[in-house]
């Protein structure tokens, strides 16, 4: 298998379980207690997830807390190892290779050069005690930059783009507000122009007006740079604003997917209906 022409990222039968599993729950027809095996207690955080992310599109993933969204994102970013499945990236050897099978050195290379990740909690994406600009330099060095002048110019460019005043670039993010920290995290993730950007609940916990700033920034980046993105949120209003297509997750599985207005206006699954009716 390899990625099709217009596909940036392709995942097949991705699964992640915590625990060894047993004969009962390793059967694909097993009925679990939400995402837990009633026989052996193994947690099936993600079960058999397949999808394509097209070039330049924003794909939304919506679902309640515990549904497996973050686990999926962490597997895509190699923060966690998938239990099984296949994973191809168009920008790594033309999508020819299953990147799950690569060495950890090669995975690190993909993290540094092809993927950008923005976490809900900036603590995971930033070195809080380093200056904003050194956070970006760190990412650039990891992706192969050596020229200090170039790195400073790139850092300034992206900090400007996310509206961090340049007279504060030598301050550590720990001094910043939550919204500013999130914007520094986005600047850092973008600084090496990754073709794929992963965003996990990046506006959760921010004030509404700050949320709007961050959302607008994401939209603008997508329009200008044509980056493909996966946006995870428990909030359908955010999905509605940003995403071309949407997948709905429940208990580790994708229960429904489609064009975003299909999901919002003609939800099929009982759980999706409950989500949608609660925002109307």
């Amino acid at each position, binding site marked *: 298998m390899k990625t099709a022409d217009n596909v940036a990222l392709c995942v097949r039968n991705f699964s992640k379980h915590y625990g060894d599993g047993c004969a009962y729950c390793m059967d694909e027809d097993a009925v679990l207690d939400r995402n837990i095996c009633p026989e052996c207690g193994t947690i099936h955080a993600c079960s058999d997830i397949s999808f394509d992310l097209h070039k330049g599109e924003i794909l939304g993933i919506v679902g309640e807390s515990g549904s497996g969204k973050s686990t999926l994102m962490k597997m895509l970013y190699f923060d966690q190892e998938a239990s099984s499945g296949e994973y191809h990236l168009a920008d790594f050897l033309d999508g020819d290779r299953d990147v799950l099978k690569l060495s950890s050195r090669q995975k690190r290379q993909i993290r540094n050069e092809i993927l950008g990740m923005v976490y809900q909690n900036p603590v995971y994406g930033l070195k809080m005690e380093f200056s904003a600009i050194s956070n970006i330099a760190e990412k650039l060095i990891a992706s192969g930059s050596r020229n200090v002048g170039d790195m400073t110019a790139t850092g300034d460019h992206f900090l400007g783009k996310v509206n961090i005043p340049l007279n504060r670039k030598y301050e550590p993010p720990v001094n910043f507000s939550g919204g500013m920290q999130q914007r520094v995290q986005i600047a850092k993730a973008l600084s090496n122009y990754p073709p794929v950007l992963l965003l996990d609940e990046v506006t959760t916990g921010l004030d509404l007006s700050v949320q709007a700033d961050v959302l*607008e920034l994401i939209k603008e980046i997508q*329009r200008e740079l044509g980056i493909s993105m996966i946006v995870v949120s428990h909030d359908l209003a955010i999905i509605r604003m940003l995403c071309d*297509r949407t997948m709905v997750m429940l208990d580790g599985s994708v229960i429904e997917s*489609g*064009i975003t207005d299909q999901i919002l206006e003609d939800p*099929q699954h*009982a759980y999706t209906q409950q989500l949608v009716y609660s925002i109307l």
Partner: protein
Amino acid sequence: MLSVEDLSKSFTIHHLGQTREAISGINLNVAQGGFLGIVGRSGSGKSTILKSIYGTYRPDGGRIIYDSKENGPVDIMEISDHALIHLRKTEIGYVSQFLKVMPRTTSLELVTQSLLEMGVGLVEAEAQAKTALEHYDIPESLWNNYPNTFSGGEKLRLNIARATVKAPRLLLLDEPTASLDHASKVKVREAISKLKDEGTTLVGIFHDLEFMEGLCDSVYDMSNQEMRHALA
């Protein structure tokens, strides 16, 4: 250009344990460059038909054959999500009374984006967007404002500007004039007439279809589920 065959759609509301049939046995068609009006009482399924053609609703049965410019006849119910997204960006437009706004996006940006999606260059897109905003009497002082501060009429005119600026091949109109004053309605009629002259095919729901007299070629009547010529 568009032919709907034996279309049916019902909605299952799980928490009520109910299934409601919205439409069934719908057959209609419209020739290239034609204007089909749909009439019927409220709740008879008019919007369900339009939303099925646009692909927002996923019908239970039937076919929706659209003769696309790029790939010839396609069944809207069968094509991939991406093929449908592409058609919406390039060929098929939809206007309702409701405006979908983005935070921090001005009215000028909103209309410009609609053209950028089709691959028009930025300078040209902005110029065309300004012309469209002017045509629909959105005062220049509002071009750099966010639409959520606009009046109902302004929002609607913006919505129509955004959809019509692309001169889509097929435009679906779901009561776009419902809450407009007479002067605004005249503007909408003018725009529709112009689009028609340029070859756009139209399917529209209007509670006062008489207002479209002379423009509408045929009518689909929900009460007997039949097509007729507009002037008959």
